[in-house]
């Protein structure tokens, strides 16, 4: 079904990494327009590297929601979201905006905050927000960029499952194409068209979700495999861990 669409990024044996260190050697994949891709894999498998590579290739087409948010704690929610459009205003306007918010951005960001459930918090410094509120601010900043492609590095890692669903739907509604790194395997199957699975620096899964089951995705995680091999009692339990049991995003590569 993807054959008819044009591809936004085509990697044909590309080496991705940081500086001289290659993390993902000889990578082959295509990102098609209109496709929603879930990016799965254990920590350290190269998810962030792949997203950084895509961001570099997509340039201005990509909205970017980094891991750990990358927010400025000392600035208000409004200013953090405004930063998405810094390049579109003059330096003078940006400076003035710190003194007094510009009219149009203030209105636009207020609308966005209402949708994200951040109403009333626009003037609060990000340093005084809860983890979930920060997460939504980071997503708000990515949405405010208004780009056709959304690249998110675990953008729903620190919110509860209901909010995760809501936020993913919001991202879906505003971007034709998206690539989102996740840890929740069920979400990947229920909310995306395609799954890319990374393990040890290789792309081991690149398939539409219709052809995948939770067990296929489990193969990505060496720990899960080891435990299932040792104790083949209840594979279903392994496949769907409670959200509380999911490792938090801190400290992951």
């Amino acid at each position, binding site marked *: 079904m993807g054959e008819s669409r044009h591809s936004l990024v085509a990697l044909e044996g590309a080496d991705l990494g940081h500086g001289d260190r290659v993390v993902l050697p000889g990578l082959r994949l295509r990102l098609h327009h209109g496709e929603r891709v879930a990016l799965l894999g254990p920590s350290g498998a190269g998810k962030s590297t792949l997203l950084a590579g895509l961001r570099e290739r997509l340039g*201005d087409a990509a909205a970017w929601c980094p891991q750990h948010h990358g927010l400025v704690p000392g600035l208000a929610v409004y200013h953090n979201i405004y930063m998405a459009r810094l390049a579109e205003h003059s330096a003078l306007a940006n400076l003035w905006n710190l003194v007094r918010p510009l009219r149009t951005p203030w209105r636009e960001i207020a609308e966005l905050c209402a949708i994200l459930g951040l109403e009333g918090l626009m003037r609060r410094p990000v340093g005084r927000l809860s983890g979930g509120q920060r997460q939504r601010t980071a997503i708000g900043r990515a949405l405010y960029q208004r780009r056709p492609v959304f690249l998110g590095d675990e953008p729903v890692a620190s919110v509860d499952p209901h909010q995760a669903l809501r936020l993913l739907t919001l991202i879906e509604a505003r971007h034709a194409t998206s690539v989102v790194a996740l840890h929740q395997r069920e979400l990947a199957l229920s909310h995306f068209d395609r799954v890319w699975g990374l393990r040890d620096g290789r792309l081991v899964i690149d398939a539409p979700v219709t052809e995948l089951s939770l067990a296929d995705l489990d193969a990505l995680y060496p720990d899960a495999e080891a435990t299932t091999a040792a104790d083949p009692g209840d594979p279903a339990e392994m496949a769907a861990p409670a959200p509380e049991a999911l490792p938090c995003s801190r400290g992951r590569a």
Partner: protein
Amino acid sequence: MSDAVTPARPAWLAGRAPGPRLARHTLTLVALALLLLPLADLAVITRDPWTELARMARGLAWPAFGAVESPLSALGLTVAVALWGTLGGVVLGIPLALLFARSRLVRAGCAFVRAIHELFWALLFLQVFGLSALTALLALAIPYAGIFAKVYAEILEQAPSAPRDALPPGVGRLSRLVYTELPMAWAQLAAYTRYRFECGLRASVLLGFVGLPTLGFQLETAFREGRYPEAGALLWCFYLLIAALPWWSHRRLVPLLLAGGAFLLGPWPAVDGGLLWRFVSQDLWPAPLRAGDGAGLADWLAHIPDLAPAIGNTLLLGLLGTVGALLVALTLWPLASRHFGCGPSRLAGRGLLILLRSTPELMLAFVFLLLLGPSLLPAWLALSLHNGALIAFLAARHADALAPGMPGLSATGRYAYELLPRIYPGLLALLYYRAEVILRETAILGMLGVATLGYYIDENFQYLMFDVAFFLLLVTAGLNIAVDALSRRLRPRQVPLDDPCLR
């Protein structure tokens, strides 16, 4: 289980863990200092230091506030010079900080102005601008510009880069600075500026030693003439000023202080452009060099007093001072930490540390010199106590922010197992940072008669041999830069950062 092989017991301080590695590092440093100790002249020259000490203590205990002539104007001028001098340093330092990473020239220039102590700058400007406010302000603003440039650049660079990386492409330099780098680093920038202002206060006091009418002028005269009750009163004034710093230097009061200080600054010199130019273009340079006379220059160099002992003494005192500061810091920090002792003991410990760290090292050295006579000993004591107390104070504050994992431990257990392993890397890094400062102070202690480079610089300025004095200043600066480079290489890396912004 019982016949499992016990792994070999490690030898003394063996192992690659940070603990033993830093311990080995420290012991090497201490051993080096002990090895070189016999080379230092540590003789006690005065006959009866104890009577003199008793008189001083009495003066400090019963200060004669009535005897001091116009203490308020001296205090006011001290504060005004520190405030405006620091502000000058900030204004000059910010643009330099932005260029710092990119321009080798800026880095070299900053390293040079930093390497010369405020007092030497004062001596230099004194020749042109006389005993004026301009001399005092330039003496502070110029070295501080170099320091601010470096430290601001480092703080900005170490600010978490995640927000900067998250920006969309094409954001201008100024917007990036004010939206990501400045807010991420603001708290540290402000804290550092505040700290530097406190250093400026001390330096401002010291400017009295070269004759500018700040607090130090009266202090020096009173001490020299043995009027200890008056000296005690002046010292107490200074301590009160420092202790009350958090209240009177509130952010909102700063503009008021600046405006008030502007009135107190003075006298302003009549700047003679021709004279200034002659000083900069002729007086500072050896005549044969200006004439392009190679043989004459060699002759000129031959007339400079033998510098090797002075350089040796400067370096030796720097090393001894650094090691002494480490030992003092390790001994004193528990006194001020909430993990040790009881309420009154902590209060006393904190008071002692604040007293030692607020007293300018030149002042301490001056007092010890009066007691012990002109050898390296008073200088060593002064450097160790002042810098050790400063490091101990910061270490105690670092320790206070930690929560011990095992609450029931004995005091030694807490010291050795819970707290020291966590604060020691930071403490050592701070010490290496101070090593450069200590060396810079070593040079100025020469002005008191200790045979370091500063002694000859002061002497040549007094004989109006500006070319020789300037040459010696350059040698001092070169030495400082070399030691700074060395200490940066030796400094422990991966010091854990406990900044809340990183969490």
